[in-house]
């Protein structure tokens, strides 16, 4: 990935005098290239106006740029129509949108949903809330000791006639890349609708919704070089058409009287109020950036890094890495060091400018299953290097020295 690092201003900063940044927390949020920062800056300096209203030059430009971003995002995931791409705040809001609209309209007491044990809280809690309200039954695909989903058990659960299957494409802890296309095919055979949490996959792998066959697919801009505050929900058109609106307000209506309203057409039906306009434009710029580098190239780069990282981490005495072998996972290494809490690992690595995540990574049930209170997690993206893996490993040896283990 020659020349990539120079595009990301933050990567050249010093964390403290003489200590450069090693950013290994892209699974939490990615860094942003200058192309994205400039696109947002340019919008605010030249074209800032509200969209979809106002007959003046700025309003025209803002609307065109916002909708252009939607076209870019739709093309990036291979959606057949831009009407199938709804801008949301993030993956979490996209999943809540489906739960609160499709779920409320079409699920009845006793209906079953299949989730997995490796879900992020954002793909658990919305369904828990809906299940409590509607009397639904939640089933879970277990995680095997190798960090993969137990597909035998999945087939059995599909036999119980679920209405929905919702699963993560790539685990944010184990890094496991689940066989989404196969799981979706099986779910459809069983008559279930499928939602894919693609927060970790869309930034790192080529993802085509039409090839996968997903009914709903949710992801966030900020994990793919774009700004925070914007994400997307892809939904098949017939499903979206049948769903009631989510939030009520401006922009999502066609007409309003004092006592009733007619919802707007797709995708505006689900975009109430002034959206994150500059962020959408930044999101579009991020998509351009990733396409310029190439998703195949990014995935290959991350495979090279994670393969090397697993090799180096596993040779350190007392270090345990969780999740499957490199060929089944993305660039995520969650690990523990015997006798040392994950917070302390992070804190000591931070002294050397190495940024990793510590905790349960919003996947408490998975940590409970693994019988761990917390793990340390290093994650990699297009701008990371093999030298940074070496600095991480050196840092871990320093942690062990301080803790005398």
């Amino acid at each position, binding site marked *: 990935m020659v020349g990539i690092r120079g595009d990301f201003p933050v990567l050249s900063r010093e964390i403290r005098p003489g200590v450069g940044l090693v950013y290994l927390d892209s699974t939490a949020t990615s860094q942003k290239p200058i192309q994205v920062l400039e696109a947002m800056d340019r919008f605010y300096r030249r074209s800032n106006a509200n969209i979809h209203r106002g007959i003046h030059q700025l309003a025209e430009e803002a609307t065109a740029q916002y909708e252009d971003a939607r076209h870019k995002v739709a093309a990036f995931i291979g959606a057949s129509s831009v009407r199938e791409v709804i801008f949301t705040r993030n993956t979490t809001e996209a999943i809540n949108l489906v739960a609160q609209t499709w779920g409320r309209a079409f699920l009845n007491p006793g209906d079953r949903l299949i989730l997995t044990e490796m879900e992020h809280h954002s793909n658990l809690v919305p369904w828990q809330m809906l299940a409590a309200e509607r009397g639904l039954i939640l089933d879970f695909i277990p995680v095997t000791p190798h960090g993969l989903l137990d597909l035998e058990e999945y087939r059995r659960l599909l036999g119980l006639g679920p209405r929905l299957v919702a699963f993560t494409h790539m685990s944010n802890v184990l890094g496991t890349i689940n066989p989404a296309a196969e799981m979706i095919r099986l779910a459809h055979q069983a008559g279930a609708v499928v939602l894919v949490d693609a927060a970790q996959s869309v930034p790192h792998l080529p993802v085509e919704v039409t090839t996968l066959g997903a009914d709903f697919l949710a992801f966030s801009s900020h994990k793919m070089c774009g700004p925070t505050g914007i994400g997307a929900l892809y939904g098949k058109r017939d499903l979206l058409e049948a769903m009631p609106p989510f939030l009520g307000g401006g922009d999502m209506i066609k007409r309003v009287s004092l006592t009733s309203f007619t919802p707007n057409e797709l995708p505006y039906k689900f975009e109430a109020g002034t959206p994150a306009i500059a962020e959408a434009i930044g999101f579009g710029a991020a998509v351009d950036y990733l396409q310029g580098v190439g998703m195949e190239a990014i995935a290959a780069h991350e495979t090279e890094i994670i393969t090397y990282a697993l090799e180096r981490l596993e040779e350190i005495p007392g270090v345990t890495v969780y999740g499957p072998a490199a060929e089944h996972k993305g660039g995520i290494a969650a690990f523990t060091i015997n*006798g*040392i*809490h*994950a*917070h*302390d690992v992070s*804190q*000591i690595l*931070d*002294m050397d400018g190495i940024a990793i995540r*510590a*905790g*349960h990574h919003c996947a*408490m049930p998975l*940590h409970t299953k693994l019988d761990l*209170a*917390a793990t340390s997690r290093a994650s990699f993206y297009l701008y990371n290097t093999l030298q940074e893996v070496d600095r991480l490993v050196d840092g871990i040896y320093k942690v062990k020295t*301080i*803790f*005398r283990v």
Partner: protein
Amino acid sequence: MDDLYRELIIDRYQNPLYRGTLDPHDITFEDANPLCGDEIRVDLRVNDQGMVTEAAFSGHGCAISQASADLLMESVVGKPLENVKHLSKEDILEMLGIQLGPVRLKCALLSLKVLKAGVYGLGEAGDDLVE
């Protein structure tokens, strides 16, 4: 920052003096740090004069949270229970002998929150107990 893991903290983390549970006890309370899921339980025995005679903590957490819990238990034994109500964030930082950022402060103050919630007989250990 470099003295964050000073000898005292590593020692108290690896060889705590007040780790365990007390059964029976006069006061017990436990709560978790939602940031990381770390949990701390505190047990106290108090005599008729309102003096803390024994104290113990259990649970799991990082070196900062475990060392501060151990030092906190040490500081309350042999003192009036009433004194516990006056303990503050500054007291904990003084015991640890370090300065902490907002994230790690939560680790350091978890045991004090739990202790105070127990002494006041509250339902949960809120941040307002240590502010």
